């Protein structure tokens, strides 16, 4: 357990190091911090002096170490636009994005497992054919188009759901405002969650189906049948557990894509999360905010991937995690 965990943590630190290097390189090359501070009407001498004071003439390594040191203390610079610490700006937006991802993940897990298992068990049924047909249409519609289509149909034409924003939220703790406490909040989060889930749900249905069908052909499933085991136990204990191993791996890979999709979804629904904020920061060339976003997203990505690895280790007995020293 310890060795496994230690390996993951070292890997995570390595990835964070690379991300911080990239972020630092972006910070150094994007925009001019002096101009943001003092504007252009300052003499060259004063500029040089300021550069020295700000440490901009130090060596690359010194500058990076200062950057990394500050980052470790939670100081990712001050947003040019908001005139606030960049990390604070992001942390205020983070709950909106996380709740959106949470909603989409619920939809994906809640539907992909039963649909994937059903289409694998009954591959020739009419319902399976319909599900598989819809799934290929589903993976062919980009997330932003699904989002637009839903706004057009459910907001513009029928007016059932609001088309933008978070609506009424309730303060929970710190910066965390939740959508899940009011009916209005629910109404606002439903369409964006579905849109965010729209391309991954069919992807996972197809993946689970393919893996499950392969597992159902395996010798150990045949053997379970030969032992007279109840088919439901064969499907949901013998087969599904083996099916989930590759699915968990792919799930880990998809986390990054999910973050990218939040940018698309938030843009369409003007959802006040990190993704929407990031695009605005790009348009305003708000370098500290761009860099902070990169680091926060990288951090989330590394943490979730490590968690996924741990889950994989728990499900797969050949990865020795639960047994110490054995």
């Amino acid at each position, binding site marked *: 357990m310890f060795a496994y965990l230690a390996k993951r943590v070292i890997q995570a630190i390595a990835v964070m190091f690379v991300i911080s290097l990239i972020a630092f390189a972006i910070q150094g090359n994007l925009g001019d911090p002096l101009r943001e501070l003092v504007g252009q009407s300052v003499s060259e001498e004063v500029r040089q002096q300021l550069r020295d004071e700000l440490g901009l003439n130090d060596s690359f390594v010194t500058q990076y170490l200062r950057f990394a040191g500050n980052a470790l203390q939670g100081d990712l610079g001050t947003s040019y636009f908001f005139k606030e610490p960049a990390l604070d700006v992001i942390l205020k937006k983070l709950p909106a994005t996380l709740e959106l991802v949470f909603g989409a993940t619920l939809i994906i897990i809640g539907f992909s497992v039963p649909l994937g298992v059903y289409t694998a068990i009954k591959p020739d049924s009419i319902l399976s054919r319909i599900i598989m047909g819809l799934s290929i249409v589903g993976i062919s519609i980009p997330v932003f188009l699904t989002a637009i289509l839903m706004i057009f149909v459910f907001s513009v034409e029928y007016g059932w759901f609001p088309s933008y924003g978070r609506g009424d939220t309730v303060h929970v703790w710190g910066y965390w405002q939740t959508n899940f406490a009011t009916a209005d909040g629910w109404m606002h989060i439903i369409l964006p969650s579905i849109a965010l889930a729209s391309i991954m749900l069919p992807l996972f249905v197809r993946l689970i189906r393919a893996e499950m069908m392969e597992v159902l052909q395996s*010798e150990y499933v045949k053997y379970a049948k030969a032992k*007279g*085991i109840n088919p439901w136990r064969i499907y949901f204990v013998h087969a599904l557990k083996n099916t989930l191993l590759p699915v968990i791996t792919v799930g880990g890979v998809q986390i990054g894509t999910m973050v990218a999709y939040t940018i698309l979804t938030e843009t369409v629904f003007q959802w006040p999360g990190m993704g929407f904020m990031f695009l605005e920061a790009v348009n305003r060339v708000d370098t500290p905010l761009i860099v902070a976003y990169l680091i926060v997203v990288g951090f989330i990505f590394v943490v979730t991937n490590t968690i996924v690895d741990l889950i994989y280790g728990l499900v797969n*007995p050949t990865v020795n995690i639960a047994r110490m020293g054995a």
Partner: protein
Amino acid sequence: MSLLSVRDLTVKFAMRDQTVTALNGISFDLAKGERLGIVGESGAGKSITGFSLMNLLSRPGYIDSGQILFEGEDVVQMNDKRLRNLRGNRMAMIFQDPMVTLNPVLTIGQQMIETLMAHRKLSREEARQIAIVKLREVYIPSPEERLEQYPHELSGGMRQRIIIAIALLLDPQLIIADEPTTALDVTIQADIMELMLELCQSNQVGLILITHDLGVVSQMTERTLVMYAGRIIEAGRTREIINDPQHPYTQGLINALPQQTVPGQRLKQIPGNMPGLASIPPGCAFNPRCKYATDLCRARVPEIVQYSEVAVACHEVQRLHSDEDRQEARA
């Protein structure tokens, strides 16, 4: 009454553009506690016979016609519930490759206990105790610990012992063993066979041993079926078949055994290959490889008839024998 009685069993495979016959009118009987060997090259239909007996063929294979009477009940006609009650309970199966037979994500204990609980009303603890007893019977050291282990933590020989223990869990009437030692190291093959023989004899369990190894059959079984291209071509007491084979194919198999060859000489292999299921020649399927083949052999499928001590499906069996007699006389 015999324990198992197979009558005219025909199994077909529905392929994309054609349907091929994998088993063609197989009939045989098995008495209670009797041990039967089924021998043949790969593709002859041995394993398909084994799976058919449990009605476990997976698509595209299916039982086309025939009866499989087990304790008087036709397995072919059973509904799913009856089949589940049969499988693992009254009739158990030992698969070929122990490395892939056990589910990798379930512990040995889970896989044994679920089998018991699928067929008997037992508490988990009672089931565990039975599992431990059965593991002892197959000489597995410290069985309590094994129950907590996953398959990948055990060697192939150990896994096959566990599979044998699972087969014995519910004291079945019949065990079907499909090449149970082929995937194992040569050194442990004999141990496993010995164990199976001992357990079948002491528990009065019927055994159908599917193998390509005539040597194993002669040690393990009382009767033998020889299969070729989906048909039984020779059947009888194992001793007679080994000592005095009647069908030219069986003779070829026995002559090809290394024991039959003077050291330094080439093994006497039967020329040619067994035909694929889609391209079985008309008449006797063996005729292209048979040096005694006549026009009749190429035209008509031989019936299986009693000859001497065994049943054999060969048109030329009488001529063959007189030939042999003549050769012996000349020698």
